[in-house]
């Protein structure tokens, strides 16, 4: 039995279904991210776990106990809100201390625990300040300390980094993960940022239209996306429309003039499919060699990489090349494109059949 278990959790607002039959088991100490575009139901799911939204049907169990209908203030979960929701009329120390006070902890012990929590997020010197005197990153840390100090069984993070600027966000990502490892709290984070979800989670739940469409390790989600949506939402992908011509030990797919063999099985001959090629898996080779011939249409300099948009007979393809000291190709220059066989994925062209694809 896993630590936190969601079984068939469903949420209706009137007749609209926000979350549909969500199943998820989270192990103790695990860091799981709910990833998806806005309106996919990820925040609603978190709110139901937190107890702020009633569950329409299904069950939520924590450590073997059914908490589906438990009141929010009896669940004892630590929550970091998107807006941080700090108490503006209390000092940083009082904010952190509030949860302990509610647990009727003696003052001396409380002060010690608050000091520890503030040390964990490097805010000892700001203990006497009010939230409005702090920067965004510092407020974020206060919110985290306030949620962690009560030693919750589960920590819920609602888009915790979305209000920070890019540089700070990256720093906080790693710090968040570090702190989570240190205290070992089971954590669920809601985010719309795929790189954030992938870099700090043990597992990622990709949500789409109220459903969890893939629950996997970040690397698998990236390398083996189950649907067309996931392959483009998580990272970039070139999707080439083709048709299966034969199945055997490998599946042969024809995309216009191009024929490729892939490892993915489970498709019938004649099925319409999409071949997914990640831009960084494709390489530009000398014109005349490789699988496809094309002409560089546009190029973008990204610092560590070049992004080329190459026009080919099967459509425009994105290719990422490392900026490794070699001369970059010019716009209008002819080039060949190649990729290793094992780096392509086959997806059903019709989204409706996505459910049946082996992961």
């Amino acid at each position: 039995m896993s630590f936190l278990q969601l079984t068939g959790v469903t949420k209706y607002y009137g007749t609209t279904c926000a979350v549909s039959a969500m199943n998820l088991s989270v192990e103790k100490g695990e860091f799981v991210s709910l990833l998806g575009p806005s309106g996919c139901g990820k925040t609603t799911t978190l709110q139901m776990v937190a107890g702020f939204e009633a569950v329409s049907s299904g069950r939520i169990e924590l450590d073997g106990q059914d908490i589906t209908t438990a009141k929010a203030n009896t669940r004892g979960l630590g929550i970091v809100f998107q807006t941080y929701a700090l108490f503006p009329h209390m000092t940083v120390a009082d904010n952190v201390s509030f949860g302990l006070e509610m647990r009727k902890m003696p003052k001396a012990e409380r002060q010690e625990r608050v000091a520890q929590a503030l040390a964990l997020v490097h805010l000892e010197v700001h203990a006497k300040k009010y939230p409005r005197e702090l920067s965004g990153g510092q407020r974020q840390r206060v919110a985290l300390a306030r949620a962690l100090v009560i030693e919750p069984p589960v920590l819920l993070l609602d888009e915790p980094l979305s209000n920070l600027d890019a540089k700070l966000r990256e720093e906080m990502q790693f710090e968040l993960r570090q702190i989570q490892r240190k205290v070992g709290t089971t954590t669920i984070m809601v985010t719309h940022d795929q790189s954030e979800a992938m870099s700090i989670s043990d597992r990622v739940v990709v949500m789409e239209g109220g459903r969890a469409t893939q629950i996997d390790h970040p690397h698998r989600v990236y390398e083996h996306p189950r649907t067309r949506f996931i392959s483009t939402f998580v990272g970039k992908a070139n999707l080439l429309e083709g048709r299966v011509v034969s199945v055997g030990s490998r599946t042969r797919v024809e995309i216009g003039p191009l024929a490729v063999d892939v490892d993915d099985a489970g498709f019938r001959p004649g099925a319409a499919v999409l071949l997914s090629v990640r831009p960084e898996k494709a390489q530009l080779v000398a014109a005349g060699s490789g699988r496809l011939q094309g002409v560089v249409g546009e190029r973008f300099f990204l610092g560590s990489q070049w992004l080329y948009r190459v026009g080919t007979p099967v459509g425009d393809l994105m290719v990422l090349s490392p900026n490794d000291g070699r001369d970059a190709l010019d716009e209008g220059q002819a080039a060949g494109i190649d990729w290793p066989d094992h780096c392509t994925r086959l997806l059903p062209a019709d989204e409706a059949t996505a459910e049946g694809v082996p992961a």
Partner: protein
Amino acid sequence: MNAHARKSTPWWLSAPALVLFTVLLLVPLGLTAVLSFNVYDPALGVKSGEFTLEHYIHLFTDSYYYGIFWRTFWISALVALICVLIGTPEAYVLSRMRNPWRSILLLVVLAPLLVSVVVRAFGWSMLLGPEGLVNGLLGVFGLGPVKILYTETAIVIALVHVMLPFMVIPVWTSLQKLDTGVENAALSLGATPFTTLRRIVLPQVMPGILSGSLIVFGLAASSFAIPGLLGGRRLKMVATVVYDEYLHELNWPLGAAVALVLLVANLAVMLSYNRLVEGRYKKSLG
């Protein structure tokens, strides 16, 4: 535009308001102040050009006026207190409602402002009179009749009714500024809904409660129509005394002196209250 012209722009922009303020407030106030020092002769009326402190000495030595000032301030303080007790929960409930109910009930709260104060006062006198609805209702239960009209109770009831919007609006405004996540945060930390209200919501709407109670106190202390109509001839408040001095006794200087003392006393009470309460919340809430 040159630097000089740019500097004078704010002055030009505020000129209409300043002119209005000067002509309609500062000038009459100055004239009233001058009037309060004028000598009054019962036979000849106001003697402009002759000055005396007689009216102020009269005011500060006659216990009749002490009683009226004391009544005015305790009634105003009580009205402000009742408005805080009723208006704050009312604003909170309103802010939690969904449209269209919220708009409809907000309109109900504001409705007293849309009706003339005289009409409202007469309405209350009909309700509270010996043959009124309230006494009729008490009669059904075998109680009363109770004398409400022409007592302090009638004045307090009517003033609370009129002043409530001035309490609800500021509290409502500070509730709008409240991050809704804050209440959930308190709940998630194990606070009961009541503790959340007391420890988290209430301190944050204190500035609204403070300004609301100041407005209500100030308006109640200088109110005229309601004490005049519901307090009767004998139960006087300061504003009705001023009216009597001007129109019945024709002793304008004494009326002016009473009015100025009310103004100063009102200011003193409001400023000290403001300093007392605001100081506690300024640091954290800005």
